[in-house]
């Protein structure tokens, strides 16, 4: 009888078993090997390592990907160099050295990591190119990788102001992650969707998105739960639903403390200070925020201390205390200079200090400067423009 079912080919089984056996040994050898090569080679000479025969393995590429993930938030330039090396190694793999699906996946993930590094450096146009190259490497069947690449592409498109395209990609990726039962990435997509809606000023829809995630029956780790409550709190703050805002911000702070993330708790405290300002309680805001700012400074986090300081500046302006507001704004400028932070951020802060001195500053200008400084984390080349 004629059948439409595909037949198992013995050579495929051999290919699978051979790779499984090789991989165990490769992964064991890769950790010490990759770390030694990176340690013993000057970073500017890392590109030459792409020709090293021992690096041309799946194990070595997986190790490079792990190093990239561990390094990205600590040292983006080093992470970029690692990603560039991984791309060169993956692209240099000899055809036939591994099954095509393995080579395809390794090349795509190396390009995806390079895209992430470029996005982190604010080079979003180049990041988009890297993500498109990543996708072009994927052979049919590697759906989960495609969703990962497209989710990352969505993040860069968002930075480039292409919100509709970004939204569609996030929605599609989320569906795919959900179908795979990948709860963590499904949640990340939900969070990204909410953040995008917040950026578009659609705070009610953003809050609905977060609340649906919270109501989901799927397990949510404590860290994500804290992030969700803070996001709901911030949306509620913009919706002037102060009761919900305070409830969620306090919940988020408590969760961050519970899981030993004091800096995240301090960020929650900063948002709580903003809430007091919005509620028309600037004195309470200032008293609440001063110890928070000191804690950030003790931790050496000049940028977070500055953002918190700007909430105090706003409170002082609400109290018509322009002189201490100007003094504090200038102090924040000095802290940014000492810490070697972005010249653009320093320029915007200087502009604010001058505006306060000439009695032209409003609380709106303070929030514009604060939002601008935060936006420089993802778009470091952006110019300051106040409305």
């Amino acid at each position: 009888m004629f059948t439409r079912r595909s037949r198992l080919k013995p050579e495929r089984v051999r290919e699978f078993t051979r790779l499984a056996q090789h991989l165990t040994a490769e992964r064991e050898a890769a950790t010490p090997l990759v770390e030694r090569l990176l340690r013993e080679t000057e970073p500017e000479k890392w590109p030459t390592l792409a020709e090293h025969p021992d690096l041309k393995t799946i194990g070595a590429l997986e190790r490079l990907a792990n190093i990239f993930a561990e390094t990205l938030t600590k040292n983006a330039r080093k992470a970029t160099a690692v990603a560039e090396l991984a791309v060169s190694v993956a692209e240099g793999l000899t055809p036939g050295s591994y099954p095509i699906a393995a080579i395809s996946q390794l090349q795509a993930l190396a390009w995806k990591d390079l895209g992430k590094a470029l996005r982190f450096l604010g080079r979003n146009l180049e990041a988009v190119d890297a993500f498109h190259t990543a996708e072009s490497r994927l052979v049919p069947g590697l759906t989960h990788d495609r969703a990962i690449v497209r989710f990352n592409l969505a993040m860069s498109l968002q930075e480039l102001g292409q919100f509709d395209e970004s939204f569609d990609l996030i929605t599609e990726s989320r569906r795919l992650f959900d179908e795979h039962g990948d709860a963590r990435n499904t949640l990340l997509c939900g969070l990204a969707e909410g953040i995008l809606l917040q950026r578009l000023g659609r705070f009610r829809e953003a809050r609905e998105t977060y609340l649906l995630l919270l109501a989901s029956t799927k397990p949510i780790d404590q860290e994500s739960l804290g992030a969700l409550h803070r996001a709901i709190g911030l949306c509620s703050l913009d919706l002037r639903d102060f009761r919900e805002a305070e409830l969620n911000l306090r919940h988020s702070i408590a969760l961050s403390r519970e899981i030993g993330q004091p800096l995240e708790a301090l960020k929650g405290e900063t948002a709580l200070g903003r809430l007091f300002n919005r509620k028309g309680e600037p004195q309470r805001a200032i008293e609440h925020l001063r110890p928070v700012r000191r804690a950030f400074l003790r931790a050496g986090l000049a940028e977070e201390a500055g953002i918190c300081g700007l909430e105090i500046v706003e409170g002082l302006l609400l109290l018509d205390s322009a002189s201490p507001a100007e003094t504090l704004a200038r102090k924040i400028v000095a802290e940014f200079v000492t810490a070697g932070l972005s010249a653009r951020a320093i320029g915007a802060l200087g502009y604010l200090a001058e505006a306060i001195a000439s009695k032209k500053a409003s609380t709106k200008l303070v929030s514009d400067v604060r939002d601008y400084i935060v936006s420089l984390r993802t778009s470091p080349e952006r110019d300051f423009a106040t409305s």
Partner: protein
Amino acid sequence: VLQSLAGTSTTDLASTYERYYEGLAALAEKLEIPPEEAEELIANILISTLLLKRPAGDVERWLVAALHDAARGEKC
């Protein structure tokens, strides 16, 4: 998945592949994926999922999702 494959004999690895292959081939037939495409597609999915990605959760759900999506024309 890796842990279950590491150190296992060639025979066991082969039977793992064959077991998953048969299930996916039956699904591919239901999804009306042409046999010549299905064979390569399933090989890609099995190598990528079982050997490289090694999901911590429900592997079968993962494999089925990958095949379903491929059947939808890799629209992601």
